[in-house]
């Protein structure tokens, strides 16, 4: 970013040729098209059913009608769904970051023998379709009385996210400066102390990025939570919305209200995490 802003000051305005304006216009149109679904949803979430049926989906709402949103909130107990999603995504993100750190310490810094093959196994575990695990997990979770608990979903996704985290973090930690480790060892620090007092603090930006990824990915998951969380009080936000959508029991304004309630947390996370996220994608891309 900095290199761009340096160049910019000099002659940016001069180079705003008609062609450049045309490109900007085309991109602005694209951006509007991308946002259009969100705008339409927001419009209709605030309409009364009567207003919707007389003016159709495209009119601008005449007022702030909140009843549709309130009705939907109470009907699905949306607050409880939010709490479930927060508990599950938060626990998975914390646990998976911890396990990824432990694994990558052994693989990236410890360089134990066979690490390439272990990494291949982690990568395979991460790319497996969930369908190949779902029935045995369903069967086993019933055996151990974990079926239809949030804990079952937390355990499963901790494993899945750790697979990716280990793969990414191991390659990041394999470039960790050796001199720092050597210096800590000279000072008489043991392996765990080096991990906790040296490696973790220095890698904190990467760990933050992993946390954000794990949180959002787990939040957005649909398939396994749908299979494992069948009772109403355990469901996450996407599962509750997806299942209701399938039942086709909602009118147009309530559908919009439900979609808006699903969009809001995602946009909030997006705004909170945007900086970390963009940085993180860079980390992932360069490997």
């Amino acid at each position, binding site marked *: 970013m900095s*290199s761009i802003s340096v160049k910019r000051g000099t002659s940016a305005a001069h180079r705003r040729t008609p062609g450049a304006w045309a490109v900007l216009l085309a991109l602005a149109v694209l951006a509007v098209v991308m946002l259009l679904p969100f705008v339409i949803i927001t419009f209709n979430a605030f309409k009364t059913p009567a207003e919707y049926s007389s003016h159709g*989906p495209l009119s601008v709402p005449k007022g702030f009608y909140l009843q549709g949103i309130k009705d939907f909130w109470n009907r699905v107990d949306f607050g409880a769904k939010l709490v479930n999603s927060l508990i599950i995504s938060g626990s998975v993100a914390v646990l998976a970051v911890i*396990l990824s750190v432990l694994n990558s310490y052994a693989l990236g810094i410890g360089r134990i023998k*066979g690490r390439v093959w272990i990494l291949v196994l982690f990568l395979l575990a991460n790319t497996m379709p969930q369908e*190949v695990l779902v029935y045995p997990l369903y069967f086993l979770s019933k055996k151990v009385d974990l079926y239809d608990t949030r804990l079952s979903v937390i355990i499963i996704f901790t494993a899945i996210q750790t697979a990716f985290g280990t793969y990414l973090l191991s390659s990041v930690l394999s470039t960790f400066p050796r001199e720092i480790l050597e210096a800590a060892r000279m000072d008489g620090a043991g392996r765990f102390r080096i991990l906790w007092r040296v490696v973790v603090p220095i890698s904190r930006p990467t760990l933050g990025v992993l946390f954000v990824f794990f949180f959002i990915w787990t939040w957005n998951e649909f398939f396994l939570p749908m299979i494992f969380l069948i009772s109403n009080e355990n469901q996450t936000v996407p599962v509750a919305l997806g299942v209701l959508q399938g039942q086709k029991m909602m009118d*147009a304004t309530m559908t919009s209200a439900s979609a808006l309630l699903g969009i809001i947390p995602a946009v909030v996370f997006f705004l909170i995490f945007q900086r970390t996220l963009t940085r993180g*994608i860079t980390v992932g*891309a360069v490997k």
Partner: protein
Amino acid sequence: MTQTLSAPPAKAVSKPAGRPRDGLSYSVYLIPSTVLFIGVILVPFVMNIGFSLTKWDGIGSPKWVGLDNYTKLLSDGAFWSSFAHNVALVIAMAIVPLLVGLVLASVLFDVIAKRFGPRTTAILRACIYLPQVLPFAVAGIVWAWILAPDNGALNAVLKAIGLKSLQEDWLGDPKLALYTVMGVLVWVQIGFPLVVFMAGLQRVDPSLYEAADIDGASWWRKFWYITIPQIRPEIYVVLLTCTVAAIKSFDKVFILTRGGPGGATNVPAYYSYQNFFEKTQVGYGAAIATVLTLIIVVVMAVLISRQNKAEEADS
């Protein structure tokens, strides 16, 4: 004790005597994950293969049938068409976003960032990236409603601008449904390559472009001979992750069409779910899932080996 618990890694460091300084004690850090992975990934994976060799409704006791489920797969038209649909999803989620993302990223980086400033660039990028952060369950509800035949927003727009004849049952017409799903997926996916490629462009040496400018190279020549070769690692990462994600698609199909109408948008992941939980043909569902896994592994291996070859050819 620790050795027996962490079986695979311990085997990997089977000669601790040679390296007294490192070795064993680092592998201790792998124990928690090893236990977790055996329970959550390895055992279920092996069990699934076991299930696929049986006929089982999930309740009684499974009956051994050997490879019957796999031979049945070979002659199952629904299975083959679900794979053909998967190819369409790869086009919509990997190929198209990759190509469009490349052009968008270099235009944003080259034209917008340099002439209109980083703020404009960041805003445009955020707008295009936004669908990526939504749970698809939510994006799917939005689209299913926009594309609804009677009171959907798209048909209302067409009516409002006098193109009533173009109104369609976008997700309900077997001839159209797959194309509609593909369109929605392009909308969802396009932000991902854009952001990755823009990050990649930041590490390209600007002097390459300056030299090309002095030689009077056109924008397209620079795009083709500098931009694309320089961000090739990112192109491979995007191609790999998007292709695998497309082959694994479940929630898109579940929310938008449930594989319908009449199987016109069914994909292997959804087909196996149907067999597991709707038709209770667990053995058959397990066979589909196993084949799906195999295909993903093969696709990954091919893409990764191509990437390695390209890197070798470079150096």
